[in-house]
């Protein structure tokens, strides 16, 4: 990840069912930083993520990816990846088929076998995702992020339904991703052990 990427938000506001969830939200996230979004349930964390992924239009304010509005930036969807509650995996396909499909859609950095080995799923290439545990499925989603070129990671509650070891592994990958010049935006309930030097926090 040679060149520096930057995500800037100006005066973001979001209204849902006539309730103002947040107003005048500003932040700037550059390569190598992690943005943690905290807040109670229903405080608008997921709505903010939907805005940051460009799925939902903010009520007012705008978002810039490398000084370009995300609506008309060609590169935003090339560089951004999103993992929601349901991982974006097809349970009827095998792990390998899912990853090959993801690579065919966007780009390839690591081979499938390397990526799966990194997340500790070596050998699971041909098992149906339906047979994997929740933790293993979340690791497979992480493998998808590793094997495609996605500088910006947007993660919605990445640590839910994960055991201690998987959380540890996930945090390591987030840290290495940030150190290699990647950007991470995530919402989370419980305290993370990520080093504070990388961290930016927003409380809704």
């Amino acid at each position, binding site marked *: 990840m040679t060149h520096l990427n930057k995500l800037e938000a100006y005066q973001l506001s979001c*209204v*849902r*069912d*006539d309730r*103002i969830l947040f107003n005048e939200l500003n932040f700037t996230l550059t390569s190598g930083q992690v943005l943690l979004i905290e807040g109670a349930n229903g405080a608008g964390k997921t709505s903010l993520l939907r805005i940051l992924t460009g799925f939902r*239009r903010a009520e007012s304010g705008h978002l810039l990816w490398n000084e370009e509005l995300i609506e008309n930036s060609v590169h935003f969807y090339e560089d951004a990846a999103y993992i929601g509650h349901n991982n974006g995996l097809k349970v009827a396909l095998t792990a390998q088929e899912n990853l090959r499909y993801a690579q065919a859609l966007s780009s390839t950095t690591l081979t499938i076998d390397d990526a799966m080995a990194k997340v500790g799923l070596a050998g699971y290439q041909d098992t149906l995702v339906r047979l994997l545990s929740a933790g293993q499925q979340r690791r497979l989603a992480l493998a998808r992020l590793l094997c495609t070129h996605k500088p910006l990671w947007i993660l919605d509650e990445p640590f839910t339904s994960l055991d201690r070891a998987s959380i540890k592994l996930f945090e390591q990958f987030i840290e290495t991703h940030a150190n290699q010049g990647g950007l991470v935006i995530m919402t989370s309930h419980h305290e993370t052990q990520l080093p504070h030097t990388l961290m930016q926090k927003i409380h809704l």
Partner: protein
Amino acid sequence: MFMRFIYKFSSPPYFYAISAKMLPWLTVLFLVLLGYGLYGGLVTAPADYQQGDSFRIIYVHVPAAWMSMFIYVVMAISGGIGLVWRIKLAEIVSISSASVGASFTFLALVTGSLWGKPMWGAWWVWDARLTSELILLFLYLGIIGLYSGIEDKRTASRAVAILALVGVVNIPIIHYSVEWWNTLHQGATVTKLDKPSIHIDMLIPLLFMAGAFKVYYFIALLLRSRNELLEREQNAKWIDELLENVK
């Protein structure tokens, strides 16, 4: 200059105030046009040599049919503007027109069958235009159904805008195919519902009625848009002052 007007006119408080001022004048204009139209249509226009007095139904049927088409196009255009330039007022105008358009379409269908009964002895006539009108009614029902189905108003109006644009592209195709189908299956009764070769003093009241219906649409549109605006701008500050002097 035009864009400046659009932005000035489309700022909610300005629109809310200006529409309040326009409504009384529009009502007067509507009543005048309606008066001329009805008097001309029911009294002075000579009875049709073939259809007798039942042809006077065209003074209600034809303007309603014109309006049903006109409003769909306005709905699609304002929906498109709202979608592309994200002007909130355009979205509101688009969705507020839907129910008015639907009632005009229903009206055109009922008056069409009321007109058809004395002429061809059947309440429903598979005439090309009436069939297209029926399909247009389904398009309107689809729009209203879609809008009421989606909770979030902003997303709902964008969905309606997309559907209206798809519909407006399809209307000529549907109309052409129904027209073509009609000439293909030319049934025993040659159903010619298009206007009889119209005499000048039959035509004038028709134009007045059409004008009256257009003004009526504008009034109903303004009233509905104001309500929709209040709903959408509940948290805006200009509503607070408005509510002060309402109490």
